[in-house]
């Protein structure tokens, strides 16, 4: 029988993989993708808690998280495109200018 612990552990595994991606990757695009993994992990635990706790609030929070993530990705990718035009690279550790 699948309990709440299974879902929480799965979400923890997903979150850890996302953290590894955020720290180890050099390209800004991959960092953004790993951030999506982090959001997906938290969404999974919200839905699991909602189902096992008998409360719809978790699912509503997931709905809002999806909306905010869509806005975040749109702005983030716009910045990535601008960065590529200006520096012709998207490697995060080659950005040393504080101002352009």
């Amino acid at each position, binding site marked *: 029988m699948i309990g709440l612990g299974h879902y929480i552990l799965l979400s923890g595994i997903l979150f850890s993989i996302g953290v590894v991606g955020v720290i180890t990757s050099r390209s800004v695009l991959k960092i953004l*993708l790993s951030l999506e993994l982090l959001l997906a992990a938290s969404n999974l635990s919200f839905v699991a808690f*909602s*189902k096992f706790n008998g409360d719809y609030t978790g699912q509503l929070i997931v709905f809002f998280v999806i909306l905010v993530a869509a806005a975040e990705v749109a702005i983030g990718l716009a910045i990535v495109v601008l960065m590529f035009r200006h520096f012709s690279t998207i490697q995060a550790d080659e950005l040393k200018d504080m101002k352009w």
Partner: protein
Amino acid sequence: MSSFFFYIFAIILVLASLAVVLARNPLYNVLSLVVVIFALSSLFMILEAFFVGIILSLVYAGAVLVFFLFVVMCLNLSTPTLTTVQQNRFQLLGWLAGLMLLAEFFLATKAFLAAQAMQPVSEIRGTIEAIGKILFADYLLPFELTSLLLLIAIFGIVSLAKGALKTQ
């Protein structure tokens, strides 16, 4: 039966999310995130969160990841200079941090005895009707505020694009 499907989708989820982090080609990273989103959406279906699962696959796989793919192809990132193996200073640190976090999650889940006793509540079925009733009654203000947030995001993107056009 549902536990069988849980394990199937959990394995797909973990493997695909590892591919998001480990694959060298940025195109494969984005496409594995599509697989992650579909597996997650299936898990939501098992948890009977139908509306959120559909919204997740529509918004993420349909809009956000297409946007990612568009940017990857627009920037032409599969040139060899960008995808070659480059040693990152933080490689070891990142894996250590991830493993420590994983161990911490494992221990916390083990110690969380209240969670193991909890049973799924069968009345909770996240249909459009159930979610809509709460969304438009108790959470109306946050819902309206997200529309403001999306408007501000549009303004931000347009001003970024206009600034880029001016400097050229």
